[in-house]
């Protein structure tokens, strides 16, 4: 059937078929995903270029303007020291989004490596790696995250400075506890792909296992990895915010969104705006990324008929 439709006259009038165009066509159908992508781009532009437009310092203390609600001088209000919340949120947003992306990269790289090894090996190694994956899946994530940060924070602080050390630690720990779904997906893809004819052909032509994996199998297994990676960004942002909210993430003078909520929670009755803006920012970022992931699923899952 597929061969027949190609030859039909209506197909010739369409622009040349390309996988990227097809993916975009499928993605576009998910209205909320398109809206979310626009929202996320606005958010990224705002935190990247915000400091050039909004030139208020994050540390300017003004005791005459404590706990003020939104006004022209302070669009998002001020905190208990009279510091501008908009400026702090722009600064914190950079860190929150950077942690999300970096932790996703760690999770995807580790997950792809382990999944690929498990998917290609036909012996005990594959079983051992899957056992390890299942073991990590049943670890209690947040307690372990807290434990690791508790134990290693001081060491890294002295090695890389307070901000850099905590950033590296948080990214490694969040990424290191989130690679398991990616590993399972990659393994499942590899198990079916490695038996396909085109891989057989590559093998017959003398391609080394590494070349088979990198040139032939991995590109075809990337779809689910991209979807899982997108959702991992959201999960990492939530994890970082949770740590900061518990007072155990970045140092107090680094205003990540979670840290702003942590500081604001004792002033809820008199300064609700202080909690609502950063909380809202976390929510918008996470919901947008999750919807983008959902749109990607529609766009990249070829089995799904749209």
């Amino acid at each position, binding site marked *: 059937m597929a061969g027949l439709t190609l030859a039909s006259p209506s197909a010739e009038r369409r622009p040349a078929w390309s996988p990227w165009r097809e993916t975009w066509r499928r993605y576009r159908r998910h209205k909320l995903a398109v809206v979310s992508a626009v929202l996320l781009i606005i958010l990224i532009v705002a935190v990247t270029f915000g400091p050039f437009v909004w030139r208020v310092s994050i540390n300017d203390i003004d005791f005459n303007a404590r706990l003020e609600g939104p006004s022209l001088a302070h669009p998002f209000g001020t905190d208990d020291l009279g510091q501008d919340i908009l400026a702090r949120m722009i600064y914190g947003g950079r860190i929150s989004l950077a942690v999300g992306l970096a932790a996703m990269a760690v999770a995807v790289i580790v997950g792809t490596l382990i999944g690929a090894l498990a998917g290609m090996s036909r012996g005990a190694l594959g079983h051992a790696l899957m056992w390890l994956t299942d073991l990590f*899946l049943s670890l209690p994530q947040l307690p372990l995250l807290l434990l690791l940060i508790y134990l290693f924070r001081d060491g890294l602080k002295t090695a890389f400075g307070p901000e850099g050390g905590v950033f590296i630690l948080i990214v490694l720990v969040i990424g290191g506890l989130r690679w398991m779904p990616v590993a399972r997906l990659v393994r499942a893809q590899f198990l079916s792909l490695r038996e396909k004819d085109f891989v057989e052909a590559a093998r017959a032509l003398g391609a080394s296992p590494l070349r088979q994996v990198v040139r032939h199998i991995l590109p075809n297994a990337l779809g689910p990895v991209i979807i899982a990676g997108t959702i991992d960004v959201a999960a990492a942002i939530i994890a970082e915010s949770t740590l900061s909210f518990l007072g155990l993430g970045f140092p107090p003078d680094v205003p990540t969104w979670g840290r702003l909520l942590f500081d604001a929670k004792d002033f809820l009755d008199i300064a609700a705006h202080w909690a609502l803006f950063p909380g809202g920012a976390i929510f918008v970022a996470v919901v947008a990324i999750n919807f983008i992931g959902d749109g990607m699923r529609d766009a990249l899952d070829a089995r799904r008929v749209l």
Partner: protein
Amino acid sequence: MSQYVLRRLLIAVPSLLGISLVLFIVLALAPGDPFSELATNPNVPPEVAAALRAKFGLDDPIYLRYLRWITAMLQGDWGFSFVSRMNVDKLILQRLPTTLYVIGSAQLLALAIAIPVGVYAATKPYSIFDQIANTLAFIGFSLPTFFTGLLFILLFSITLDWLPFVYTTDIKATGFRWVVEQVRQAIMPVMVLGLFQAASMTRFVRSAMLDVIRLDYVTTARAKGLGQARVIVKHAMRNALIPVVTLVALQMPAVFGGAIVTEQIFRIPGIGSLLISSILSNDTPVVMAVTFVFACLVVLFNLIADVLYGWLDPRISLR
């Protein structure tokens, strides 16, 4: 059946050992001596510190230290909390019921929302109801528990003044009033945790139900002339909920994470808030023990789910 349970138990033991090994390696790799607190803490006499150092054998080879640690944990010798001035196992046993009460109620609430909504959405896929339920579920699991908690406090405690936002164990009232107060103070934490769980569970239930509803035996039941409600509840739902059991168990690590945050927001005296306060006061034995208890609970719930699965689905129980 008993053979199946036994086999599952035997599978749970290595994963518990694996988790304990991971915890121990983390502790052993940590820079600095985790027990150096003892030396600098003026409340601890030096001979106690020396005795503890000898007991934990900090200069022995690592496998010996692991063996000693795991035997001590198994014998219930979990160390001594210097902040609370009592044995760690007693401290945890004191706090555990509150945590289990909140988590349990939240799970019940989540099931009570997720099963009807998920099943109804699956019977009418892509209808308005389904789309609204899906979108709400999406928003629900994108809202972090710490933010919903603060929003609830803002709405129900500060604006409306309906519910207390600090959880107390020593309620002054007695009799019926005591029960009412106990329920009132649990409403917000249970709602925060339950709604978060309900969001992802609704999606599980819906997709499991969609898988089953297309099967031939459901069509047969309809062809026999059974009513819609009977087909859905008696035939489709019973089978659709079997995989949901496993998915609920797989969610347990996330539930405990949510419980830690909720306990911290509402100041519930459970093991989650114990973990945070111990970390903030550098109480290493308590931190290790609470993390281990959380790990044991995850393995336990996985075990229960496996056994339930075998009981619910006779196709796998005899293998």
